[in-house]
């Protein structure tokens, strides 16, 4: 990427249930953290891109930009997208085009206020025809798993291993989240917890296979390469970012076992960087469910199709903090993933970037990982809907 957009500071709130906090308090908190870190003033901002999936619906807020203007007392260009990665992508384009030099990218969501209606909202927005037919946000993940099992003919002992592997995904995420002060669930769970919840629900996936609903916000300061070097010693560059789309209607998609949008987004992002997946050892996947994490490992090219569960199973028998890809370490969802860190839709992608940023700069504290090779690159995958949109961002530290 020419004129690499650079992230100079990140900030976020704890994810979880913020009953007492208004949405604007959450974004304020995340923004303050990021701006303090970069020593940026509001007046320095040339544009703000904010992401938020639900507020226009839940709060009937038609023009969120105005709300943001009130909050920041700014009159600069502002746009609202539905995912953090979408905001980041648009901001990157603006920086690359030389239009702006300093931008705020933020994301927020307040889901728990609407706990009793949120599943209807999510489902209707995600895939209306499926909603009309009786689908739930969880059912599509389960159908994807059923389709996967049938397509790859996984039976008997292998099927048992796959089920355990998916449980291990959740166990791993919860374990990672114990070291994340911002995570919604900072407690460990066991494979038995996951398996028992499925047994109780009498379906392929149970309570512990799914990410929760959350409140939270995240923010970052994005600048041009030139300015970044003045603001920090350790800028993190957005080396490649790309997005792709797919049908709203999950049953109508050609492949029910993978997210074609993720495959395309990753391919294009890699093309921008000239790298192969294995150059990247740090990834934050969009694990709305354990199945999504498994399938995404294949979509992004880390495992062959139909095989990711073997990698997970093999790595988690004696989990050392990474998935073992034939001797190569792959660190996945170090912040606990959506599963344990939380999933406030509009802010989730920001937390993924936050994690990669901190890890690449060696500032992840207790969670900091090291590798034999230098940790230079990280990647995030964020989805909108059930794979209707997919965003891949590849980051590089100075």
């Amino acid at each position, binding site marked *: 990427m020419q004129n690499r957009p650079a992230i100079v500071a990140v900030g976020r709130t704890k994810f979880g249930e913020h009953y007492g906090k208004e949405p604007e308090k959450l974004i304020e908190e995340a923004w303050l953290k990021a701006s303090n870190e970069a020593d940026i003033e509001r007046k320095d901002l040339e544009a703000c891109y904010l992401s938020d999936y639900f507020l226009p619906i839940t709060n009937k807020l038609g023009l969120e930009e105005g709300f943001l203007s009130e909050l920041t007392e700014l009159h600069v260009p502002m746009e609202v997208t539905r995912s953090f990665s979408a905001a980041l992508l648009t901001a990157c384009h603006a920086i690359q085009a030389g239009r702006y030099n300093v931008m705020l990218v933020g994301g927020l969501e307040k889901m728990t206020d609407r706990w009793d209606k949120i*599943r209807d909202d999510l489902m209707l927005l995600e895939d209306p025809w499926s909603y*009309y037919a009786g689908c*739930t946000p969880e059912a599509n993940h389960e*159908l994807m798993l059923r389709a996967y099992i049938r397509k790859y003919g996984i039976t008997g002992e292998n099927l048992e291993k796959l089920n355990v592997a998916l449980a291990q995904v959740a166990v791993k995420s919860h374990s990672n989240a114990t070291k994340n002060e911002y995570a919604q669930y900072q407690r460990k769970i066991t494979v038995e917890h996951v398996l028992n919840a499925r047994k109780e629900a*009498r*379906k392929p996936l149970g309570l512990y296979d799914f990410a929760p609903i959350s409140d939270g916000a995240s923010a970052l300061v994005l600048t041009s390469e030139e300015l970044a070097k003045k603001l920090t010693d350790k800028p993190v560059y957005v080396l490649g970012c790309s997005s792709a789309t797919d049908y709203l209607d999950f049953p109508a998609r050609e492949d*029910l076992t993978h997210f074609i949008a993720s495959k395309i987004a990753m391919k294009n992002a890699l093309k921008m960087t000239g790298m192969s997946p294995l150059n990247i050892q740090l990834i934050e996947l969009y694990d709305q469910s354990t199945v999504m994490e498994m399938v995404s490992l294949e979509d992004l090219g880390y495992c062959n199709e139909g095989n990711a569960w073997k990698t997970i199973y093999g790595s988690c028998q004696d989990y050392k903090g990474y998935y073992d890809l034939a001797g190569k370490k792959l660190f996945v969802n170090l912040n606990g993933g959506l599963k344990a860190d939380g999933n406030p839709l509009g802010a989730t992608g920001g937390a993924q970037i936050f994690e990669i940023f901190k890890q690449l700069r060696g500032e992840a504290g207790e969670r900091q990982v090291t590798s034999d090779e230098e940790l230079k690159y990280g990647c995030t995958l964020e989805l909108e809907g059930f794979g209707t949109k997919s965003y891949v961002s590849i980051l590089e530290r100075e």
Partner: protein
Amino acid sequence: MSSEPIERRVSYLGDRLKGSRCQICGKEYFELRDYCGNCGRKSFGKMQDVDLFYDKGRLEICTLVNEPTNKFTKLGNYFYGIISFHNGRIRVPGRLTDRMVKCDEVIDFSALEGREVVPRFRRRYSVNKSDVIPTISLAFTFADEYYPHQEYTIADSSKEYDAPGIVGYGVYTSRFRIKEGNLERSVPFLDEDAITAAVEAGKLALIHSGVDSSLVGKIYVGSESNPYAVKPIASKVAQVLKLGEEDEDVQGVDAIDTEFACKAASSMFKDAASLVNYPKSGIKYAMVIGADNSQAAPRGCPGGELDLFVGYGGSAFIFGKSDVIAEIEGWYSCTSDTPDFWRRDGEPFPMHGGRFTGDPAYFKHVRKAAKKLMERLNMQICDIDYFVTHQPNVQFPVKIAKELGFKEEQYLPSLKVNKFGNTYSGCSPVGLSAVLDIAKPEERILITSYGSGAGSDAYLLVTTNQILDKRQRQKLTIKHQTENPYVEYVDYTLYRQLKLGM
């Protein structure tokens, strides 16, 4: 659904399961499309409509939903999955209906996946009492269970008759029954009501008749349990079954609902027959449907005695002068202002006049209609092969049949109240269907309906040779529905819950 236009668009596509096929590359889509994604601009004008309404699909994959979204909570636990049509060229989401997943049921998804399914026209989900009732055909049942898959093949008519008559018919009852003593009664599933029964019955009549639905110029739906006080069932039937010529999204058909307690449908037989017989009507076929989710107050409450007899179902008849299976030889109707049974506007359940419903009501009118018609046509009891009458309970039809002089072999074949209960507007038509299912050519059928309020219509029908030709087209016969191993029996509490619906 808060917006009626949105509801209208979703229903328009979802009720009939409309899709498109690209005539260039063959790609198929659920929902109507003007062009194909593969072929782009050159496919404009080359997209063909695809209709999945009479098709069968395959349940590809499924899961259990045990925490539905809010609008589906009344359905409890259900199976939900992806259904493919045309060897996977079209895939749609779908809920398995008519199936209550019990708390202790051992679930094996692979035993359900891969099986053939047929679409059912049902209520979509729960809404507020004042809202438009959403419907959809993205509900499915297994093709090897209660409802078999039936192809709809339009047949060219081969013979014209002098007198109009019945060209085809169909009876739709639910898979669920309540059994108390010797009496079995059909019970709707939660997503069924008078509207869904009317559509399903009409669909069966089209299948049996082989009549091109675009030639049906009038549809009458008789019901006393229309969930709407204002909004016809007939318009839904016309749209979903594509009655009359379709122009854009409007059907060239006259549709009207009728109400006269249990004779709301049978009363219109003569109107339908007259209409197709009128040379300048331009109407080749007319359809009459009687459908009810027969209401009754709970036992112990005023009017609760009815709760022992009420059933659920619909029956549909197509009248015309081509390929007739039973010609109408004549009719007689009588009416008096007799308040033996009524339901005030806004009240959920009807009231009745107790003993007053017998002699001065049911018997008086049925007796008069039957006798007058026989007199008029100069018929004797021995000239009649089958006698059909309204069946509010088991005793009334037997008593009047005997009084008129009919023998068991003449009236028992039509007696189905002990299998389905009193299906109100659909009741005597169900009896007629039971007879048409077994009648030989050149047999005479006398049918007397009864509607409280009160009146009776008597018709004399004579079957033709074509009754045999069309018989194999209908798999969902009365016998199929009464002797079906997939019938599920429910207890009283569940029966009340199911009748209230979503």
